[in-house]
């Protein structure tokens, strides 16, 4: 059997005598690879990678702070694709036909992907993660954070008339008004515990039972469990709700467009945005280089000048302009809580199921 195997190998393409036929075959193989994986074999200057994105102002900021400078510096062009979601990423990795080289997403998606083993381990010889404020897992990096907090209309509810902390949001007698929270357990559970008096530094691991008890108290006062992020702002604009849990990255652009809306910065929940590199990618090394580029302090600062995010690179904080420093939460303040996505990665599914049942009863 074994000798047979050997013979069949030798009679294959590896004969020492290059015939015209084998040359043609080799040419065919080269042409073939050229057709299948064209970005992989074209010269280094015209290489390109594909990065997922969220569109709108976010995309414009990514282009200006990361994609274009990266292409200029390395010669690797960056294509941004919007509306990328985890199920499609999973299909790509499972079929080993990956067309997105870097996946840019929020904690729950990145953690679910990590759980399913979709991500490549971050190559620390390329990506320097030592200067990051929030250190996360081995197969993803936190890039910058966005602040969530309590939104209100300052025209209808001037200072003193609107809740600034979660404890005040829970106090429906002192701050009457129509309230809106998101229709998911993450963030709500943190808010409930903070409202119940848990010290921010003792928040994790979350006390689930205590949290649900606190949620029971606010449940009758919630007019809408908001499904989509834009509604956290538009429902205040249309006077349908008075106080919502919303995001700074939504409130500030709305205010610039003339809407009367503000967000309390006294107590914020900060969620990280992440980058991960899928397994079986065709441009893994270039993808790692892009991730490293995005973590550079100067790039982080440039990005946070464009959109209301806070950098995850400690050194980037010093490079920010005074205006940006004033609008982002002070991450040294204990009341600026950072959402622990790793904890949620382990608990989200079962708790969201419980939360959904809780909502139905």
């Amino acid at each position, binding site marked *: 059997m074994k000798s047979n195997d050997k013979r069949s190998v030798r009679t294959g393409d590896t004969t020492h005598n290059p015939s015209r036929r084998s040359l043609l075959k080799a040419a065919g193989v080269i042409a073939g690879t050229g057709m299948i994986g064209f970005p992989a074999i074209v010269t280094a200057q015209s290489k390109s990678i594909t990065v997922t994105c969220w569109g709108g102002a976010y995309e414009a900021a990514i282009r200006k702070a990361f994609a274009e400078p990266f292409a200029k510096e390395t010669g690797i062009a960056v294509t941004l694709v919007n509306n990328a979601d985890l199920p499609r990423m999973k299909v790509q990795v499972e079929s080993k036909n990956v067309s997105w080289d870097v996946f840019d997403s929020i904690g729950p998606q990145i953690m679910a992907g990590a759980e399913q083993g979709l991500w490549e381990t971050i190559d620390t010889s390329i990506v320097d993660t030592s200067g990051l404020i929030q250190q996360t897992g081995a197969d993803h990096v936190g890039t910058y954070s966005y602040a969530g907090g309590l939104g209100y209309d300052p025209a209808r509810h001037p200072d003193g008339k609107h809740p600034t902390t979660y404890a005040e949001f829970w106090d429906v007698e002192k701050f009457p008004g129509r309230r809106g929270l998101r229709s998911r357990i993450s963030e709500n559970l943190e808010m409930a515990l903070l409202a119940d008096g848990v010290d921010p530094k003792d928040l994790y691991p979350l006390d689930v039972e205590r949290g649900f008890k606190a949620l029971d108290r606010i449940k009758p006062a919630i007019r*809408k469990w908001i499904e*989509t992020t834009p509604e956290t702002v538009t429902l205040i604009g249309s006077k349908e709700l008075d106080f919502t849990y919303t995001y700074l990255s939504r409130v500030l652009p709305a205010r610039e467009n003339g809407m009367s809306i503000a967000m309390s910065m006294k107590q914020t929940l900060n969620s990280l945005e992440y980058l991960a590199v899928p397994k079986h990618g065709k441009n893994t090394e270039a993808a790692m280089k892009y991730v490293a580029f995005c973590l550079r302090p100067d790039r982080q600062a440039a990005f946070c000048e464009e959109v209301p995010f806070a950098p995850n690179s400690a050194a980037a904080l010093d490079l920010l302009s005074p205006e940006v420093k004033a609008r982002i939460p002070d991450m040294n303040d204990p009341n600026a809580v950072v959402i622990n996505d790793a904890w949620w990665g382990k608990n989200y*599914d079962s708790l969201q199921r419980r939360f959904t049942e809780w909502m139905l009863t």
Partner: protein
Amino acid sequence: MMHTLNTRTVVVLLTPLLVLLLAFFLWPLGLVGWTSIYDNGLTFSGYERVASSTLIHRVMGNTLEVSVLATITSLVLGYAIAMHLARMSPRRRGPYLVMVMLPFWTSILVKSFAFTIVLGNAGVVNQFLDWLSGGAWHVEMMFNRVGVIVGMTNYLLPFMVLPILASLQNQNRNLHFAAEIMGAGPVRIFTKITLPLSLPGVFAGCLMCLTLSLGMYITPALLGGRQDMMLANLIDFYTRQTLDWTLASAIAIVLLVFSGLLILMMLRAQNNQEAVR
């Protein structure tokens, strides 16, 4: 004139449709069915979890309730609209039909915003009630069952109006005249002639509305309250958020069987109806 086609022509004419259905309907559906029982080996865990989860049962009951309610309101409103349209001259009917179709062409996000302006807490209706009663009357019409039914009915109406309109227009006017000559009043004409003859349209409309509402997802999520969750929302949750495709497929298949049975029941009712006649 020959109306029969030979078998070969039939096959040739049907092939494109069959290929299309096979590639874009049966194949993906088969895949969903397969995913529901296969996860690194044959498993029935998806169906077991569907059978044992009170959450899924409750949402299933909800879905049925909301769908039937939305279908009934669409039927009542749709029938009235169809009757009105059927009496118009074709020239006048045109613009009115466009108005019937309008919600069909509008994005749900835009519509949900528009509903807030009309039905919301600070909306037109509540402001009017407020003015009328001096602040005593206030009706919550958003983010509860009312909002869901309004939103769904708005979407479903064209599917109800069009088949009923067709069956009303097909009626022989002479029957009405004959009934009138024999002394029947308008109510009697409606119950004895118009309604029975329009039943095929009513059945077709109800069938479409029920099937569509069983799969509805965004409208209830945007306009409903916390208890207005539909089965499609759960499927989305397991597909996109937890990536539990076995369970998601199992729920999808159960929903499919569920709607299949409902449709079967309706078809049977219709057949019985025809047999009686």
